[in-house]
């Protein structure tokens, strides 16, 4: 890494730490008396971030440090918001952040040394299938979809892990830049989508559908399939509207939330009020009313952030997410090996669609779907899996740059 770039990265790490400390100091005075808890939290965060950044930079000189810094920054803002809303879940989230960093490190390392897995696409499909089918058998129902597995107190969503295996499956099938056995290939994709729809995880199904569409287009550059896919999406949307009750509710709430403010449109209306309250500069940290918004720690954390940091803060956050996607696409463009290139693209595309879906949902650009905002929403499995995906991305770039010399 060039010294100048390194200096910029270090500066950004310092800014992330500074934002955390300032927010913690502010929140420590919130109740009128001084309470040091948020400061401890912010110090733990800084230690994890510093150790993570400098250790990975020292061990993997060829890595892309921007990935880690960007997601630390988003996590920092997320933790500040979570602490402000509910200190208890912020503490849990901090633990998840630590575990996530560790797994980022491990998955980078495993990916760098992994000699391209020669298991073939069918195994990836099988793993995806098992992951998505397992909650149908052992799972519990939460938030209207049966896509969770519970281990005691801890809820895990296997579809988060399936995103990675699904992108590997697509990348492995399409690595020759053409679809060899189209009936089998599309059959497999529709089995995956069917499982998601069966668990009534329609947001997830949409995510997988569009990710598959984009990766197929990127790999084969076939416009006809893309157009067909988009028509298929419209048809699927109409069918969903006909047959799934809560799709109809969500769509109606999106088209006109003011029709039923205390009932179906409640979430989205509260979210819009919060955004309107924020204005350009926000109300200031701790002065908004995120407690009015339902599911504010998970789905609607962006509206809470919008309220307290304003339009300027929220649009900057979107640009930070955009930078993360930019780094991912840049990584996939620098790679010659088409399997690794498409895997990197797949992981990035999943991030991109997920971010667009949830941010678009809370600002009423598109109908609301219950997916998490990566690195910001409260939730262990989302946090951990996002870190693992980024670790894989980091491992792929290290393989490409380090080559066979040290890999």
């Amino acid at each position, binding site marked *: 890494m060039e010294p100048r770039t390194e200096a910029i990265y270090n500066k950004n790490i310092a800014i992330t730490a500074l934002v955390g400390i300032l927010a913690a100091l502010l929140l420590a005075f919130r109740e009128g008396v001084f309470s040091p808890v948020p400061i401890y939290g912010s110090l733990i965060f800084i230690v994890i971030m510093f150790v993570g950044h400098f250790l990975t930079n020292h061990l993997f000189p060829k890595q892309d440090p921007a990935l880690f810094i960007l997601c630390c920054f988003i996590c920092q803002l997320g933790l500040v918001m979570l602490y402000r809303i509910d200190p208890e879940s912020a503490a849990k989230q901090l633990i998840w952040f630590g575990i996530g960093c560790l797994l980022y490190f491990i998955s980078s390392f495993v990916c760098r040394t992994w000699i391209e897995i020669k298991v073939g696409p069918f195994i990836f499909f099988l793993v995806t299938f098992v992951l998505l089918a397992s909650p149908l058998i052992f799972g519990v129902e939460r938030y209207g979809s049966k896509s969770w597995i519970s281990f005691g107190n801890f809820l895990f969503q296997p579809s988060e892990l399936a995103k990675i295996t699904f992108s590997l499956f697509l990348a492995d099938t399409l690595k020759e830049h053409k679809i060899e056995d189209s009936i089998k290939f599309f059959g497999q994709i529709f089995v995956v989508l069917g499982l998601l729809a069966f668990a009534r995880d329609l947001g997830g199904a949409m995510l997988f559908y569009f990710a598959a569409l984009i990766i197929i287009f990127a790999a084969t550059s076939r416009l006809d399939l893309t157009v067909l896919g988009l028509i298929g999406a419209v048809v699927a949307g109409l069918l969903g509207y006909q047959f799934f009750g809560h799709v109809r509710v969500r769509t109606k709430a999106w088209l006109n939330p003011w029709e039923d403010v205390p009932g179906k449109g409640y979430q989205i209306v509260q979210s819009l009020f919060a955004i309107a309250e924020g204005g350009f500069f926000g109300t200031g*940290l701790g002065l908004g009313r995120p407690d009015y918004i339902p599911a504010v720690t998970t789905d609607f954390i962006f509206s809470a952030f919008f309220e307290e940091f304003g339009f300027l803060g929220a649009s900057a956050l979107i640009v*930070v997410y955009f930078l993360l996607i930019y780094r991912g696409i840049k990584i996939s463009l620098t790679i010659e090996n088409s399997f690794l290139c498409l895997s990197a693209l797949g992981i990035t595309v999943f991030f991109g669609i997920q971010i667009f879906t949830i941010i678009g949902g809370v600002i009423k650009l598109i109908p609301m779907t219950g997916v998490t905002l990566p690195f910001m929403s409260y939730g262990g499995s989302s946090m951990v899996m996002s870190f693992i995906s980024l670790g894989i991305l980091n491992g792929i770039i290290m393989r490409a740059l380090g080559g066979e010399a040290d890999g």
Partner: protein
Amino acid sequence: MFELLSRTLRYVFIVLIYYFLYNFLKIMIADLRGEKSQPKETGFILLDENGNKYTLFDINTLGRAEDADIIIDDPFISSKHALIFKRGSKLLIQDLHSTNGTFLNNKKITRPLRLKENDEITLGTKKFKFLRGETVGAEDRSYLQ
């Protein structure tokens, strides 16, 4: 008290967030510039009658001028004679209004044309063959044996 602090600090937060963004955008722009200034090899080459190889990059000017990418010393060739450039995954050749014209497989070209393997390009009196880099490498090895 808390309210006042929070109202003041919100500007600080926004400045910090934008400073963070500015730093990253700076890196991004430097990245994009760096990518542009480093020409990429296309994997294709030009082979002239004497067996000289010219590696083709994304954009190549051919001519007599000293700042042409591929310099050809021939009195019948203009200083900037022709251009070979990449569009998508294909390489195209274009005549740069040269005095004596550019010929592709003995036909004079008037608009940018796509180059295929084993095409013959004629500039002035010189003839070039458009080849894939690897095929020539293989031939070279066969010479050694």
